[in-house]
């Protein structure tokens, strides 16, 4: 079984040389720490930056340099700033190779819900709906079950949707799963110490073993 750092480390293996990658908030942000130094990757921040670097050293922070999570960041050689309309232009026109984001629920059809819990505070969808509607390659990083112990891999999402038929791959603390075009969560690998029974027990949607 993996912790959130382990999930991030596993997802980093999916990133290939030359990729432009958009990382969402939460576990996806951690992925940046595990990208191999042998490959060249550009991180996109949808508020208008390609080539995002690490956090600044204390005292070197700059209010004009932030990421989509409003955290202070730095740039790298080759970085470029642009406006919000162009930022989503490059997302819609498929220039971004990989999008990694968190989710509250994913359905066996690849539907994703990650922006709203009715009756509770609605914070807004931010850029998530745009990203999932256009990205060709979406990996979801999340826990297999929610805090109440209920499966987040479902036959159908119960929460308001962010996008439909878009998730291709899910990495949880239990394993790696492909969402099949015909529907279903195909087990690609189980993490060390995880049994098939554990995955069956924690997956409500159709599992393809």
């Amino acid at each position, binding site marked *: 079984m993996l912790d959130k750092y382990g999930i991030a480390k596993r997802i980093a293996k999916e990133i290939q040389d030359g990729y432009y990658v958009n990382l969402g908030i939460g576990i996806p942000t951690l992925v940046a720490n595990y990208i191999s130094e042998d490959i060249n990757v550009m991180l996109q921040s949808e508020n*208008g930056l390609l080539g995002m670097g690490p956090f*600044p050293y204390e005292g070197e922070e700059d209010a004009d340099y932030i990421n989509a999570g409003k955290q202070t960041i730095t740039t790298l050689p080759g970085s470029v700033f642009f406006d919000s309309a162009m930022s989503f232009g490059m997302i819609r026109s498929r220039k971004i190779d990989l999008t990694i984001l968190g989710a509250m629920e994913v359905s066996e059809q690849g539907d994703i819900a990650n922006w709203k819990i009715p009756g509770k505070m609605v914070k807004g969808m931010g850029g998530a709906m745009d990203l999932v509607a256009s990205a060709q390659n979406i990996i979801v990083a999340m826990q297999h079950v929610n805090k109440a112990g209920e499966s987040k891999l479902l036959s159908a999402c119960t929460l308001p*949707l962010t996008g439909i038929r878009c998730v291709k791959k899910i990495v949880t603390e239990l394993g790696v799963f492909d969402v099949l075009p015909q529907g279903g969560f195909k087990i690609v690998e189980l993490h060390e110490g995880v049994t098939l029974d554990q995955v069956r027990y924690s997956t409500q949607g159709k599992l393809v073993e």
Partner: protein
Amino acid sequence: MINKSVSNALEAIREVKSGMTIAVGGFGLCGIPENLIAALMAKDLKELTCISNNAGVDDFGLGLLLQRRQIKKMIASYVGENAEFERQMLSGELEVELVPQGTLATRLMAGGYGLPVVYTPAGVGTEVAEGKEVRTFKFHGVEKEYLMEYAFEPDFALVKAWKGDRTGNLIYRGTAQNFNHAMAMCGKITIAEVEELVEPGVLDPNFIHTPGVYVHRIFQGENYEKRIEQRTFRPKE
């Protein structure tokens, strides 16, 4: 030479009236027009409809106008940093339209490009699609559904740039560009505040972000706080 410079924020917003729709630049607190927001507050305009990616925090940015009940309706993509916003929304005092961030930026852009509508796949199959025209296009080699979204035509756009000249040409810095460029382009009247206002000819025409034709008033702001929401560091090596 066309001179659009005015002396300060209050003079710049002279024609802004209660009940108008205004686009306000910035992403979080980065690149927000601090002086213009303060002027809206000082003039105590009411019933405003604000188009802005976020709603500020409780005591800064658009949060200042929310505290004073100056905003009737908020059109935004993410409003999670503001407790007063949450209170007003849940009590029904504030009308809220949540728009996907790319759709928001693109509707602003469309206004500035003279296009009444755009089609975007964002929100297809979700509650964002309710009541909207859906069309199928073959694009990028695949058939896919798209939502028709209308361009924004705000009465005023209030933006912040790093440098500008008296003809209204603007240059932004870093990620403070964000929504400011698209908003500047779509305002019926666009007001820009800049950290440094220079004479025409000083800025290299090769490196202007927003051409001055889109800007109607410009002034040099003062006392920029440039507050940071999430101060994050890496350890010293």
